[in-house]
């Protein structure tokens, strides 16, 4: 896997998928994200790192307008997905979220069957014409999330009955079932044990073939392992953004260096 990421780094990165310009986020009077501008590459893994409360999760949630659902949250600035402003009044957040999927910190399968969990997104968006279609989407999604072999015999079992790592992969399957172009992951491994973490990381590596992945993580090792680009956030500002290799070996900003060597955070 490491060889693979190195190879990607040398190959250089694809074109921009999401471009954020001067994004500010306020929760009531709190200025949570301060003037962040970032370009997220297509079909690559971008990691957001930084100490707790630095605004990286908040910024991530701007990318699929999840902050809209929080009372008192206000987003300023411009975010373009494929050149289209996602905060344009004409854009329906529901449609946007079908395109920009999200995986959360704590595995949160619906208290329904495994099948229904994965089928929910395609159902509400009308992606399947019939039952056979839906079966196919569910199987494909579960395979992409590397959980098919573990659950294929018990698709009717409740998703909440799986282990933590399986639940998180189920959530990833659920997210990829709507064929998103971008997948946002908010500390997807923080509630998982090391083996489950390794499985999810492997999965992320697979996913980036056709999806742009943005991952927020507390683990610098994880960022180094899975990402091609890394952004370091501190106190609401984007301190440094660049190729992962460069951030971890040759940071330009002293604060980045202090963080990755464990002096702040």
């Amino acid at each position, binding site marked *: 896997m490491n060889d693979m990421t190195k190879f990607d780094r040398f190959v250089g990165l694809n074109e921009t998928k999401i471009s954020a310009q001067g994004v500010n986020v306020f929760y009531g009077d709190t200025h949570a994200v301060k003037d962040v501008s970032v370009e997220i590459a297509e079909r690559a893994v971008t990691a957001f790192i930084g100490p707790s409360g630095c605004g990286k999760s908040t910024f991530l949630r701007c990318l*699929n307008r*999840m902050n809209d*659902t929080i*009372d008192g949250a206000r987003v300023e600035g411009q975010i373009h997905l494929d050149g289209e402003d996602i905060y344009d009044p004409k854009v329906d957040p*529901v*449609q*946007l*979220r*079908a395109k920009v*999927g*999200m*995986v*959360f910190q*704590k595995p*949160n*399968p*619906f*208290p329904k069957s495994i099948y229904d969990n994965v089928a*929910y*997104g395609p159902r*509400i*968006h009308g992606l399947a014409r019939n039952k056979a279609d839906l079966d196919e989407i569910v199987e494909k999604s579960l395979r992409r999330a590397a959980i098919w072999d573990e659950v294929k015999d018990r698709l009717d079992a409740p998703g909440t009955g799986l282990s933590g790592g399986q639940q998180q992969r189920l*959530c990833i399957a*659920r*997210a990829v079932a*709507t064929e998103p172009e971008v997948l946002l992951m908010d500390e997807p491994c923080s509630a998982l044990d090391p083996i489950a973490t390794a499985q999810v990381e492997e999965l992320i590596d697979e996913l980036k073939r056709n999806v742009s992945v943005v991952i927020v993580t507390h683990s610098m090792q994880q960022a180094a392992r899975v990402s091609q680009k890394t952004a370091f956030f501190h106190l609401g500002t984007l301190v440094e953004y660049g190729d992962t290799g460069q951030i971890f070996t040759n940071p330009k900003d002293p604060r980045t260096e202090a963080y990755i060597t464990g002096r702040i955070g």
Partner: protein
Amino acid sequence: MTDTSSAPNTPPRHGTGAAVQASLARRRRKQIALQACGIGAISIAFLMLFILVASLVSSGYQAFTQTHVTLDVFVDPEEVREERLPRGGFDDVLAASLARMLPDVDTSDRATLRQVERILSNGAQFALRDMVVADPSLIGQTIEITVPVSDPYDQLNKGLIDRETPEENRRLKDEEIAYFDALKESGAISKPFNFGLFTNADSRFPELAGLKGALVGSFWALLTCFVISFPLGIGAAIYLEEFAPKNRVSDFIEVNINNLAAVPSVVFGLLALSVFIGWFGLPRSAPFVGGLTLALMTMPTIIIATRAALKSVPPSIREAALGLGASRQQVVFQHVLPLAMPGILTGTIIGLAQALGETAPLLLIGMNAFITSAASSPFDSATALPTQIFIWADSPERGFVSRTSAAILVLLGFLVTMNAIAIFLRQRFERKW
């Protein structure tokens, strides 16, 4: 408290140990005292409950049986003529038949016959009349009929009239007691389960009075209450919890809903009286109006319970659905509401149980009227269980004393059943997150 950071005034380690030891004993004593208080409180509560139920049962169990007399009635064609039905001397027929069963009764003396007739409930002649009207061929035949005895004889049979009391202070004369004893001797007296308590409507005569009218009235009122307060309460709660912007207006509404839940029920009764009956001109004493009034009272309970249930659905489920591109309405109706349903139902059942026991507002809208037939629609006059208890408790006849307690036991039975259903739902469907 490591050595490197030791301040000069840090007590030595063994000293700390002793201090902890001393405080441990004190803390343990406090713990024991607290537990003792708790057990004491629970014991007192149980004792009170026991006294309540025991006193109700001891005074009410007699009402679950009713003394009946079985007699062979010769339907005398002289007294009952087919062409005059349904009128006829049914009371005289019964009195004559009863007198023939007794020794030493002068059947030609009308005063004695009247006295004998009073053994039977006033309803007996109507029961006989109904039989004969339904089948006029019975005229001229001798038929066996079992009818309730009147209240004083029922009391006598149940041992509630003391035979040692001087005759002038007793409701039954020695002679009358002798009649009854003779009937009992001949095996004509029986004391079966009092089905009339559930199948009869209210009556002036305790031996005929039953709860059917009240049960039907309460059923209609609760049905109306449920049909109105359940959808409105859930709708209001969903809007307030999931869609309303959090601002001063919604805060104000929330405070007022909580206040509404605490408004004394008699106030709702007055409101219903002036609005539903006064302005809308709805019928007085109707269970429909009672149900509307109870719905006003139940709605805040349902709203509060529903909001609590909605709130207890973890935000991660909402985020998951929103993150997949579900609209807010889809999140609420496909995920949050189904998960909150057990809590909502529990709150609703408890609210309805409260409504079932509510008396004051029903008194104000006239549901304490004396009504001798069960309502066939929610717009007919009716009583409800608690108001029926109120009426009976107010009645002077001795027979109503035990019936009041029996009615309270029936009401408590319904309340316990409803609460048991609520607990069952909670246990069965509650989800641990």
